[in-house]
C-alpha cells in the first residue's frame, strides 16, 4: 500500500483541500441540523405544553363535578369529530388520570377504559407515573420512556393549587422523526450542492498551488546528467515562497552552468597547454640533431663527392629534413619577434592576399574595419591570425556564401571577428578544435595546424579566442590586448 506521505503533491494538495472542504461542510451541516432538530423538538414540546395547559385548565371544572362526558369531549376536541370516530393516527392519545392515577377518561376509551390502571394496559405508564410532579407542582413533566416511539407530557390538572388529576398527552415521535429526516435530507442536499461547487474549485486551487512545485521538482530531477535549459523552465515569477524558490533555483542553475563552462574551458586550455609543452619539447629535441644533419649535408654538398646520384640523394635528404624543420617550426610558434604596430595597410594587404580565394569561390566578402590609427599589436602575428582565420572561413563557406571580417577596439583589446555562413562545427568537436592536426576538412587537405598556430599566437600575446557555431553562422572572435606601454 502506498503511503499518503509518498503521494505526489499533485494529488496531495487537492486531496487535502477536498478533505478540508468536506470536513467543514459536514461539521457545519451537522451542527445546523442538530440545532434545527433541537429547535423542532423544543417547538413541538412548547406547543404541546401550551395546548395541554389550555386543556388542563378547561378540565378543572368538569373534573370537580365528576363530569366524565364533558372531560371526554374536551380532550377529544383536538383529535377527532365524534361522528366519524376516526382518530388521527398521528395524533397519539390523551389520558386524564384522577388523583389515584387510574383512568378518568381517554381519547382511546376502548384501549384505556375508565377506572383502569394505565400501567396494566401500557407498561410505559409505570415509568411515566414515576415522573409525575408532586401534588403542589404546576409544572409540566416531559417524559420519553425508553424503547418508546412516543413522547409524553404530564400536565397537572389543578384546583386551588392542588392536583385533582393529571392530563397525559402522548405524541408519536414519527412525524417529528420524519420532519427531522426531511431536515437532514434538505441539509445534505444543500451540502452536496455546495460541495459540488466548492470541491472542483478547491481541487483546482490545490492543483494551481502544486503546479510550480511540481515544475521545480521536475526540473531538479532532470539536473543530471545534463543541466536543463533555463528557457524551457516554466517557473512562476512571483514573490511568494515558491516564487523565491524558483528564482533561487534559476540562479543556482545559471551558476552551475557557468561553472561547468569554466571547468570545460579550464580542461581544454590545460590540455592545449600540455600539448604545447610536449610539442615544444619534441621540437627542441628534434631541432638540435636536425640542425646538425642539415649542416652536415650542406658541408657534404660543398666538399664531398660530386657524383650525380649522391647529390640527388643528398638533395632528397635535405628537402625531407627541411620539411621536418618547417613542420617543427610551425608547431613551435615563436611570438618573440618584435614588429611594427598593426595598421590599415595590413588590412589592405590581407584583402589583397585573399582576393584570389574570394574570387575563385565567388564568396561575398565584407570587411568592417575601423581601427583608425595604428594599433599597438604585433602586425606580423595579427596578420597571420587574420589570414589563417579568413582562409578557414573561405574554405568552410559554400560558393556564393558570405564571409565577414570585423576589426575594432574594445576595452583595451583589438577584437577580430571572422564569421561565415558555411557548414558549422559540431559541438563535440569544439573542445578539440585548437589541438594540432585537428582538421575539419573532409579531404584531408591542409596541415591541421592553422588553428593551433592561431591559438598559440593568441596565447602568447595574452589574448583570448572563442568560437560560436550554429546552423546560421560560425564565428571566431579573437581578442588581442593592446601593448600600449610595452610598445612605446
Amino acid at each position, binding site marked *: 500500500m502506498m503511503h499518503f506521505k509518498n503521494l505526489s503533491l499533485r494529488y496531495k494538495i487537492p486531496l487535502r483541500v477536498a478533505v478540508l472542504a468536506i470536513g467543514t461542510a459536514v461539521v457545519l451541516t451537522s451542527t445546523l441540523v442538530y440545532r434545527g432538530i433541537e429547535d423542532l423538538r423544543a417547538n413541538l414540546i412548547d406547543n404541546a405544553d401550551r*395546548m395541554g395547559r389550555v386543556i388542563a385548565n*378547561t378540565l378543572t371544572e368538569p373534573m370537580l363535578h365528576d363530569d366524565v*362526558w364533558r372531560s*371526554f369531549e374536551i380532550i377529544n*376536541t383536538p383529535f377527532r369529530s365524534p*361522528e366519524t370516530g376516526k382518530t388521527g393516527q398521528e395524533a397519539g392519545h390523551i389520558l386524564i388520570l384522577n388523583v389515584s392515577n387510574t383512568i378518568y377518561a381517554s381519547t382511546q*376509551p376502548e384501549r384505556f377504559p*375508565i377506572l383502569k390502571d394505565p400501567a396494566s394496559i401500557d407498561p410505559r405508564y409505570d415509568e411515566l407515573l414515576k415522573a409525575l410532579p408532586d401534588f403542589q407542582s404546576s409544572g409540566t413533566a416531559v417524559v420519553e420512556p425508553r424503547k418508546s416511539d412516543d413522547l409524553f407530557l404530564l400536565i397537572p390538572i389543578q384546583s386551588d393549587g392542588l392536583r385533582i388529576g393529571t392530563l397525559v398527552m402522548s405524541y408519536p415521535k414519527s412525524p417529528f422523526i420524519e420532519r427531522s429526516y426531511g431536515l437532514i435530507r434538505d441539509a445534505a442536499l444543500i451540502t452536496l450542492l455546495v460541495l459540488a461547487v466548492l470541491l472542483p474549485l478547491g481541487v483546482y486551487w490545490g492543483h494551481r498551488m502544486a503546479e510550480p512545485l511540481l515544475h521545480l521538482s521536475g526540473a531538479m530531477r532532470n539536473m543530471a546528467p545534463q543541466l536543463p535549459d533555463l528557457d524551457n523552465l516554466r517557473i512562476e515569477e512571483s514573490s511568494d515562497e515558491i516564487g523565491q524558490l524558483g528564482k533561487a533555483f534559476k540562479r543556482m542553475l545559471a551558476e552551475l552552468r557557468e561553472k561547468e563552462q569554466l571547468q570545460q574551458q579550464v580542461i581544454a586550455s590545460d590540455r592545449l597547454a600540455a600539448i604545447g609543452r610536449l610539442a615544444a619539447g619534441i621540437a627542441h629535441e628534434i631541432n638540435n640533431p636536425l640542425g646538425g644533419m642539415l649542416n652536415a649535408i650542406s658541408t657534404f654538398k660543398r666538399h664531398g663527392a660530386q657524383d650525380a646520384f649522391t647529390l640527388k640523394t643528398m638533395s632528397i635528404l635535405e628537402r625531407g629534413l627541411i620539411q621536418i624543420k618547417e613542420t617543427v617550426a610551425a608547431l613551435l610558434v615563436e611570438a618573440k619577434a618584435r614588429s611594427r604596430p598593426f595598421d590599415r595597410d595590413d588590412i589592405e594587404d590581407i584583402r589583397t592576399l585573399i582576393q584570389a580565394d574570394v574570387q575563385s569561390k565567388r564568396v561575398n566578402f565584407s570587411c568592417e574595419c575601423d581601427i583608425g590609427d595604428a594599433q599597438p599589436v604585433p602586425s606580423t602575428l595579427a596578420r597571420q591570425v587574420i589570414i589563417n582565420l579568413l582562409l578557414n572561413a573561405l574554405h568552410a563557406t559554400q560558393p556564393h556564401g558570405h564571409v565577414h571580417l570585423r576589426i575594432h577596439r574594445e576595452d583595451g583589446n583589438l577584437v577580430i571577428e571572422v564569421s561565415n555562413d558555411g557548414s558549422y562545427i559540431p559541438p563535440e568537436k569544439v573542445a578539440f578544435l585548437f589541438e594540432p592536426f585537428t582538421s575539419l576538412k573532409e579531404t584531408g587537405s591542409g596541415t591541421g595546424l592553422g588553428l593551433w598556430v592561431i591559438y598559440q599566437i593568441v596565447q602568447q600575446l595574452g589574448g583570448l579566442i572563442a568560437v560560436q557555431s550554429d546552423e546560421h553562422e560560425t564565428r571566431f572572435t579573437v581578442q588581442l590586448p593592446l601593448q600600449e606601454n610595452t610598445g612605446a
Partner: protein
Amino acid sequence: MEVAVVNPGDPLKANRLRRSGASRNALRANLLRLLLPLLLSFALPLHAAEQPATTPIRIGLTPVFLDYQANFVNEWRQHLERQLGQPVSFVQRGSYREIVNLLREQKLDFAWLCGYPYVRNKDELRLVAVPLYQNEPLYQSYLIVPATDKQTRSLADLRWKNFAFSDPDSNSGHLYTEYLLIRQGESPGSFFGKTFFTWSHRKVVEAVASGLAQGGAVDGYVWDTLALSHPQLTARTRIVNRSPKFGHPPFVASRAATEQQIAALRQALFSMAQDEEGSRLLQTLNLNGFVQGDDHLFDEIEEMSRFVEKQRP
C-alpha cells in the same frame, strides 16, 4: 352548554346567532379557550332580549329531540310565530332540571319536556300536546352497547361496566334503567363501574360509539332519528334491548300560560301536519304530528317514578 334562541325582532342579532351556531362545529376543532368568551358573548344579549316590546311566548326546549340544530330551531320558531301571530322565544338549557325550574318559576310559558319531570310536577304543569312518533304518541328507551361488543345480551351483562345516562330527569335515558336495576335489588351505583351523564341523548350514542361507555340508555326516538341523519354514528352502536312503550315527551304549559295561549299553541302544533312548511319541519323532527293526548299516557312513567323514589335513600 347553553344555547339560546330568542326573538328579539332584531335581524342583526338573529343573524349573529345563526352564524354562531353554524360555526360551532368549526370552533370545536379550535382551541377550547376560544369557546368560553364566545359563549359569554351570546349569553349576554339573551337576557337583554327577554323583555322585548311585545311579550313573546316563551317555550323551553330540552334535549328530548335533536336540540343542536340551531338553524332548524330558528325555522320552527319563525313558523310558530306566523301561526301564533306573536313572537316566540325558544329557551334552551343544558338539563331538564333547569327547564323545569324555569317552568315552576313561571319564567317559561311552555316547554317540551320528558314525561318523567312532567309526572313529577303534574300539579304545576298542564299537558298541551303529545308528538306522534310512528303514528303513536309513544316511544321507547333503548339499551345500547358499542357495535364491537357482540356478547352483551341484556342489562345483566353490563355489570361493572361503565354506563352512560343522558339526564337524571330523563325517563328513557335514566329512570327506566334505574327502575330495572332497583327492581333487581341493585342501583346504578352498585351495579355499574362508572356512570356518567352526557346531558343529551345524542351524546349517549356518541359515548357508547366511542367506547367511553360500554353501555348507555337512550331515547329510542332520538336513536332512530339519528340512524336516519347520521347512520355512521348509530352504526357503531348496537341495540341490546328495547323497553316497553311509554308516553312520548309532551309539550306542557306552566302556570304562566293562559288558556288562550294554550289553545293557540295546541292549534299551531296540530296544524303543522296540514301545511307544507309544517310538514317539512315535522319531517326533520321525524314526527308525524301532534295530538292532545292525556295523562294516562304517562301512567307507567309515574309508576316507575314512584317506585324508584321510594327506594332512593
